[in-house]
């Protein structure tokens, strides 16, 4: 794969890369930091502009293309494809109100709207516990609900 690099006097630097069939990608880095991306479908065709990017946008796009893009997200802003809902881990300690109760007895789902989708007990993970499942001290409940529901649930497990 060849990348052609040219100095463009008065403008900046030009990079060209053969992409598919006869097409060529042309990237123009302006001295002022602006980046233009063109596509030339064949050597005789005129280049068509695909993107006009700022320096920041170009860096971002580049890291995505390179596979190096990731973003550290704080849990306060966590968005998963569950609408408002998110997954939380709730510790059950010895003096918890729900320790020793089955899920149906504690009735937390009806009261708070939070579903217990799994339980971690020591090394073991129990997925989709059924209503008769008895919660014990030391369990970690994996729960699904929105922010308010989760807060309510955590309070009732204390």
């Amino acid at each position, binding site marked *: 794969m060849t990348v052609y690099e040219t*100095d*463009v006097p008065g403008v900046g630097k030009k990079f060209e890369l053969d992409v598919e069939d006869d097409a060529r990608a042309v990237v123009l880095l302006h*001295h002022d*930091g602006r980046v233009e991306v063109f596509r*030339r479908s064949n050597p005789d065709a005129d280049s068509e502009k695909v993107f006009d990017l700022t320096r920041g946008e170009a860096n971002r796009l580049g890291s995505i293309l390179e596979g190096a893009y990731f973003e550290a997200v704080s849990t306060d802003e966590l968005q998963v494809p569950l609408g408002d809902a998110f997954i939380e881990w709730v510790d059950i300690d010895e003096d918890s109100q729900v320790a020793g109760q089955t899920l149906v007895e504690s009735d937390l789902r009806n009261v708070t709207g939070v579903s217990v989708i799994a339980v971690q007990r020591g090394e073991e993970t129990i997925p989709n516990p059924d209503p008769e499942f008895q919660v014990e001290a030391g369990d970690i409940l994996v729960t699904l609900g929105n922010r308010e529901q989760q807060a309510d649930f955590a309070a009732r497990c204390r």
Partner: protein
Amino acid sequence: MAAAGLLLDAGVVLAAVAVGGAIATRLDQSVIPAYIVGGVLLGPNGPVPSLRLVGSAEFIDLLQGLGVILLLFFIGLHFSPSTLVERREAVFRAGGLDLLNGLVGLAFGFLLGFTALESLLLAGVVYISSSAIITKSLIELGWIADPEAESILGLLVFEDIVIAVYLAIVAALALGGTGGVGGGGALTAVGVSLVVVALLALLAFRGTPVVERVLDTRSDEQFLVRILAVATLVGGGALYLGVSEAVAAFFLGAAVGGTTHADRVERVITSERDLYAAVFFFAIGLATDLSTLLPLLVPVLALAVVSGAGKLVTGYLGGRAYGLSERRSARVAVAMVARGEFSLVIAAIAVQANLDPRLSALAVGYVLVMSVAGTVLMSQSARVEDLAERFLAGRTLAEGPAGPETS
């Protein structure tokens, strides 16, 4: 003049430049003719007496000088010897053909009864294309990503070197005192000029570490001030010695272009250059008297037609020298038509040297026509390309079987 008057003058100038620029942008035109027209309208010789708002104030002279220095400084900054070396055969073939355009100006000069020096200046006015207009149009039209951009910019770089040497000589001849070729004073002036230019060239190609150190500062403010200080000192000093400040600034730009600071100059100083350059074009308008320009209307148009056709031919052949297809060569032809800032730098020399006032008026009128014609031609290039293809197809038919001309 009272300080308040001076400040008000500055306000009027900047407002006129802003309005002119806005109108030109709305019309998809280069801003250069708009600035000149603004200067003509508001200047001491303006057609409407009540609009003669701006006298030739000292601050305009100053900004005009800084405009020339920064324009040429940037040309030097972008001066890329590698562009020339990489494809030297094509560059020199295309550039050599392009040089012939100067002959049109030379011939017109003699026809109009100018002296040899004045005709030589007119040759420069007609020869030199506008890097500013052409580069801007290349970016706006997206041609910058296509192969024709390389040959167009190669030609511009070639022209820049020619004009640097040319300015060094003609400025010395014109400003050297006698105003004619062959006088002892003029010869001395050319000698001094060439020595100064040689020293500056040495700085440009050997002095990079020194320049690097002088400009080494983290503060953008310090950086801006240092560049302006050095450029103004070098330009002013050169002018004091009778050497063109434009040439001095060009080589200084080349020296800075070789350092790691080149990109930073773009970021920090471009807006300064644009401001001073705008005032430079405006000041050219101020110095222009419509009553000298109007009688020259016919020569201006004749010069525009003949030299425009000349650029189309040499540009096309230049594109072919680069191995471009007929259509892309037609684009090179169209792109090279615009004239602008350099032609006006030459006109400014003619004014400074008290040469025939018709010369600078002719140059201003010519730039007005050619800067507009150049941008219009480039935006309509599809039609020109079709015409060229049809015309060339007809020609090859008439000549019989065409050679393997298509690329």
